[in-house]
């Protein structure tokens, strides 16, 4: 019997674990180690953040699902990886620290035959003074929609702002990224337009000054260096597409901004041209930068080899080309294909947990030398596809250790993205977009780096319907309900 341990139970980890267990059956063991007791459909958190969904609509308990699937579930955080075992025993293992199941604080060693790191990101609020509380958690000056609990809190604060606006007090709302190296602009993009939509519905839009602040060097960069898509028969840049929506909704923007300090009611930022500025707010939702979750790695002799397994940003090294080179020399082939660690072939990283070889967007620095550019997004669809490919590979390797790994390069896969711009069965809108491939390949597609036959976008009610249907479809799939394997990642 082989044992597969999946660290993390988000989109990628859950996909890996559930498919692996389905394919391996009772003959082999699948263990999921995640500090969370509940699974969260994160794309719908923005609707929780404006009071259009409750926390219960976007989460469900993991324990009964894993029990039904026959997966050994440990509500614990992974602390360290020991890929060479320890003195007197070559069996690789990880150490975990329980966060639930009545064993809070207890530690345990779990041996493995195969290990998947799908821990997702650490929300690195403390990277920006004032954005965090100094203890790794969100600070008191701003809100976030990164977790369901954050979104509940965001809505509570937003409703206070709406109440003040209803009483005739003009309010300033600021939404965007809280650091120069953030990713996930999409969530902030969705949140700002959902606030704007709800303000209109509440009849208080004219009492709100809503502003966007982002580390993107141009609107519509999205951490992917922007994209060109088919819209109304034209090939249009995402810059025009995004600016159009912001102009239509009367939302001005600050871009190329590194938020370097947050205080009560005020952010301080540095722009690419080196100028410093401040922006006041009554309500701010700023996405934090991401980093790896901080798992350590140790050699057999107990020496620290974290830097062998992990990149400096804490994400795990896989089969990517990490050679430092200028932007002009970046290639699609730099991106990983199998997500297998080059030193330990039984270790994989899936979803956000793998270390990208470099940015996708063109690297930018302010004239003061501060890096200000979005880091690469790894949205749900690529994370799910990668998780499934890793599950395939491990199942094959359990049967035949020399089996060829399955491949899922982000430079060869597309992504469908639906960004809500307001919720409502007949009044909602969303930007429905596809991008193919996620990582541009300028050798294959010399014009825009992507195939414009498969990269398109449009805004409308249909997109909203699709986002709402996807919400139910993916929760159905994650709950392993009948037909779950037929729903694509």
């Amino acid at each position, binding site marked *: 019997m082989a044992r597969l341990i999946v660290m993390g139970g988000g989109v990628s980890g859950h996909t890996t674990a559930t498919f692996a267990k389905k394919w391996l059956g009772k003959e082999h063991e699948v263990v999921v180690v995640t500090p969370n007791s509940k699974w969260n459909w994160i794309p719908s958190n923005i609707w929780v953040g404006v009071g259009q969904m409750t926390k219960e609509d976007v989460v469900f308990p993991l324990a009964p699902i894993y029990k039904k699937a026959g997966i050994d579930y440990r509500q614990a955080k992974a602390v360290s990886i020991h890929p060479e075992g320890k003195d007197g025993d070559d069996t690789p293992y990880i150490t975990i620290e329980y966060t639930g199941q009545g064993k809070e604080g207890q530690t345990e060693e779990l041996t493995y035959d195969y290990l998947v790191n799908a821990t997702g990101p650490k929300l690195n609020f403390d990277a920006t003074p004032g954005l965090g509380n100094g203890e790794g958690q969100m600070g008191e000056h701003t809100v976030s929609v990164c977790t369901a609990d954050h979104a509940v809190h965001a809505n509570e604060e937003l409703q206070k702002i709406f109440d003040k606006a209803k009483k005739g007090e003009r309010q300033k709302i600021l939404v965007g990224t809280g650091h120069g190296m953030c990713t996930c602009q999409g969530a902030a993009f969705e949140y700002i337009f959902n606030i704007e939509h709800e303000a209109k519905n509440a009849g208080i839009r004219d009492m709100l000054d809503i502003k966007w602040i982002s580390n993107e060097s141009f609107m519509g960069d999205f951490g992917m260096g922007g994209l060109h898509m088919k819209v109304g028969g034209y090939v249009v840049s995402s810059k025009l597409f995004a*600016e159009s929506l912001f*102009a*239509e909704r009367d939302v001005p923007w600050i871009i190329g901004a590194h938020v370097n300090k947050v205080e009560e009611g005020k952010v301080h930022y540095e722009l690419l041209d080196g100028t410093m500025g401040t922006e006041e707010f009554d309500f701010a939702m700023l996405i934090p930068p991401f980093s790896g979750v901080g798992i350590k790695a140790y050699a057999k002799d107990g020496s620290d080899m974290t830097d062998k397994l992990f990149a400096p940003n804490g994400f795990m090294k896989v089969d990517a080309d990490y050679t430092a080179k200028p932007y002009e020399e970046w290639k699609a082939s730099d991106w990983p294909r199998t997500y297998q660690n080059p030193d330990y072939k039984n270790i994989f990283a899936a979803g956000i947990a793998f270390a990208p070889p470099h940015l996708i967007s063109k690297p930018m620095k302010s004239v003061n030398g501060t890096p200000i550019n979005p880091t690469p997004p790894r949205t749900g669809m690529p994370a799910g*596809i990668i998780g499934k490919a890793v599950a395939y590979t491990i199942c094959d390797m359990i049967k035949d250790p020399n089996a060829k790994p399955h491949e899922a390069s982000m430079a060869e896969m597309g992504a469908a993205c639906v960004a809500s711009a307001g919720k409502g069965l007949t009044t909602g809108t969303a930007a429905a977009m*596809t991008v193919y491939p996620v990582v541009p390949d300028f050798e294959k597609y010399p014009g825009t780096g992507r195939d414009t036959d498969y990269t398109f976008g449009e805004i*409308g009610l249909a997109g909203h319907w*699709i986002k709402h249907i996807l919400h139910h479809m993916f929760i159905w799939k994650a709950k392993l309900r009948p037909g779950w394997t037929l729903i694509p*990642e």
Partner: protein
Amino acid sequence: MKPEEKNFEQEQFTLTMIPGAFARKLRTCIIFQLFRFAVINIKMLVVVSKSH
């Protein structure tokens, strides 16, 4: 002044495009959006199938 023209008064918005009344109406026109729903789904399924 039409709503879409008002925003061009702001310097930041002058170089973009802002949809007019007809384009905005189409975005929430149920019949048109039912048709777009089918089209977008087909396009997304093609991209999904190319990505697996």
